[in-house]
């Protein structure tokens, strides 16, 4: 067992109102620079819909993530290493700017320079890439609130995967929002795809980053990520991605998307996992078993054996305390209401989602039943194949049972708490059926309904004592935010937290057995699928 800690996010989809505040604050913080106009480290998609970039979920087309070869070994879906080096001059799986959108701005000057006349001057869109006039045809939130869905949404890969009969019922449907950031995967195919070794997973907190000084613009990470959450900066020629706001995380603060989320639906906490078990779990044969397999990799922070191992591995004491209070672990493993996004991509994603009950409750209400009556809701959950199958395609590689169980638990909490508040008899037997004790109901109510700031975000600050001591001898020259290529991103880091780069290589790693080094050449044997190739 090799215990590692990972900062993990959970989003409660029932509460997302699709306001894009998270996208806007993220953009203002990280990608309001030339070259990344089209880049959304955080974007919010309306589901059903094509997503951003269009149809990114269809790995038959994009070849992102991992797949099993005929012998059941894990390999990159886009092919082996030799193939990658030979196709370095043209990456056959790279989306073009049309799949995102041609970034544009407006010729605002015309508003004041237009000759005076009776007509109000208007501005037209100008491509940022060429400076010419253009006609926007697609974008990150083009299909907001099902706009254009009758023409387009049936091409949603999750709908394509459903049966014909169900697909035809689409019109009667449901809709919800899916906010997405990088998953900071346990088995990141972006890292594995990078031929330069510029991408890495941080040993302390599992954040996946691009070293801007080592990236050479080979762009295989962009195609290698099945969630398309690595982007190519067309000005600098380097890849950039969601950083999980590591400067904030290191300071014990939630990410900016979480901090500003209007629905207060995001949770951040530590999850302890067994790094030695990751590869085997990712190679689970039946994709439908991948959800359970990933749960199996997580370690119970209450287990004394785990805590001892973790302390051995150098995880600080306060981090272990934070892991025990982690809302992420509670929602994912203890109460099993959160599910991973597309576990079938085999990257072991670490941003999990509580499936939305509202579409189901809406249908129940529309049918004239009490949408807080668990019996009616249960019946609807079972009768409603559309949301269930669709959600299962999103979260459990198609297996309906875990989605149904999660939805049942959510529905039970609503009715139990409602009855309690109204002084009625709470349907506790329903809770027990759904696998919840009364303590669980209380806990979930506290996390999901009360959702106080300090319950949502349990982020232990990074241990930077050593870094601070070393840095004290020097004075930082200039504000780190001024460094070109944007703040952070593994370039000139935030003061006190310079990342291990080439210059820092050679300092001994935390692990005496040499499994984790500072140098890029250093890696973990656990994550060497296909190393025998």
């Amino acid at each position, binding site marked *: 067992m090799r215990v590692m800690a990972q900062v993990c996010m959970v989003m409660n989809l029932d509460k997302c109102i699709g306001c894009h505040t998270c996208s806007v604050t993220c953009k203002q913080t990280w990608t309001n620079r030339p070259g990344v106009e089209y880049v959304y480290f955080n974007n919010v998609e309306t589901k059903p819909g094509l997503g951003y970039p269009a149809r990114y979920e269809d790995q038959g087309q994009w070849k992102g993530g991992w797949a099993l070869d005929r012998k059941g070994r894990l390999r990159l879906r886009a092919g082996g290493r030799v193939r990658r080096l030979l196709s370095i001059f043209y990456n056959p799986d790279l989306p073009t700017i049309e799949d995102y959108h041609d970034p544009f701005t407006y010729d605002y000057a015309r508003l004041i320079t237009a000759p005076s006349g009776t007509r109000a001057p208007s501005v037209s869109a100008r491509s940022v890439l060429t400076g010419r006039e253009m006609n926007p045809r697609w974008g990150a939130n083009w299909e907001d609130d099902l706009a254009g869905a009758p023409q387009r949404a049936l091409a949603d890969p999750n709908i394509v995967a459903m049966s014909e009969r169900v697909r035809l019922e689409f019109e009667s449907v449901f809709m919800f929002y899916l906010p997405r950031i990088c998953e900071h995967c346990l088995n990141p195919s972006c890292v594995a795809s990078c031929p330069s*070794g510029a991408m890495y997973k941080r040993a302390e907190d599992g954040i996946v980053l691009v070293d801007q000084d080592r990236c050479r613009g080979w762009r295989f990470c962009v195609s290698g990520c099945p969630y398309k959450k690595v982007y190519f900066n067309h000005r600098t020629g380097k890849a950039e991605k969601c950083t999980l706001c590591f400067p904030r995380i290191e300071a014990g603060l939630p990410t900016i998307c979480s901090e500003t989320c209007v629905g207060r639906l995001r949770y951040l906490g530590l999850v302890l996992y067994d790094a030695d078990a990751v590869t085997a779990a990712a190679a689970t044969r039946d994709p439908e078993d991948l959800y359970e397999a990933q749960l199996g990799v997580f370690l119970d922070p209450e287990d004394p054996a785990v805590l001892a191992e973790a302390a051995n591995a150098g995880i600080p004491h306060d981090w272990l305390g934070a892991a025990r209070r982690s809302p992420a672990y509670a929602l994912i493993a203890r109460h099993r209401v959160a599910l991973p996004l597309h576990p079938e991509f085999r990257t072991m994603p670490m941003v999990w989602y509580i499936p939305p009950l509202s579409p189901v409750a809406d249908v129940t209400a529309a049918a004239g039943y009490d949408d807080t009556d668990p019996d009616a809701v249960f019946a609807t959950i079972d009768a409603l194949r559309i949301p269930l199958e669709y959600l299962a395609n999103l979260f459990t590689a198609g297996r309906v049972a875990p989605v149904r169980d999660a939805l049942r638990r959510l529905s039970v909490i609503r009715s139990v708490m409602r009855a309690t508040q109204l002084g009625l008899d709470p349907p506790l037997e329903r809770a027990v059926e759904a696998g919840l004790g009364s303590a669980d109901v209380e806990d979930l109510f506290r996390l999901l309904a009360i959702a106080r700031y300090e319950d949502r975000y349990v982020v232990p600050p990074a241990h930077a004592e050593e870094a601070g001591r070393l840095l004290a001898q020097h004075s930082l020259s200039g504000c780190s935010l001024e460094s070109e290529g944007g703040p952070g991103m593994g370039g000139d880091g935030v003061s006190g937290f310079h990342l291990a780069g080439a210059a820092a290589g050679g300092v001994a790693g935390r692990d005496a057995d040499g499994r984790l080094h500072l140098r890029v050449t250093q890696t973990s044997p656990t994550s060497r699928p296909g190393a025998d190739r």
Partner: protein
Amino acid sequence: MSSLRGVTAFQLFWWVILPYLALATFVIGHVWRYRYDQFGWTSRSTQLQERRLLKWGSPVFHYGAFAAIAGHVVGILIPERWTRAVGIPENAYRWFSAGAGTLAAVLVIGGVIVLAARRLFVGRVRATTSPVDWVALILLAVVIVLGIVETVGVGLLGHGYDYRRSVSPWFRGLFDGSPDVAAIAHASLIYQVHAVAAWAVIAVWPFSRLVHAWSYPVWYLWRPFIVYRSRVAGRPNEPGTSGRRWRKIGVRY
């Protein structure tokens, strides 16, 4: 330096000073760029902007260029007496050189035509080209076109030209300090211009996007897939150098 006797200042400049200047710029420029501008060191791919032409142009050009480089190694670096010593008759060598050279030339020129058309006529791609890249690419185009005229026009269709007696001794001589100026000075003009343009490419190389050639990531073949790194204290930049780069970010390319 006996070979320099009877050399005019004009010849000295083109065939001795210019090459050494170019080589010095090449070496010092690379050291400087590598230390100063890791962030700007990239292939600066434009596949995001345009993929259909790139799909054909780029692989054909690059593989053709590899073949052309291999050809230069054989023709310029390996002395004629070596090939003779292993028993390759001059005639056979010349036909091989013309044939393989033509194949490489066809690939390179095909790729160059597609890539040049792309760079000139696709607005999105043209917009990404910085001035120094224009210089490098135009020089490269000159070198390539002349090289193709030499290989195809002279070597294959013409009556051949024994560059191994003129260009090669001079070039090899540059590296042991005794360039045979007389040999290159009396070489045919087209080879002279080809060589001069090539030195110019060498000189601008470290300052252009061509530096990506040294970053071909062969070691990816052995590297374990998942890379972990620990956060450690790094030394801050030397005062006064913080964030300085070869190109400014935010300005147009």
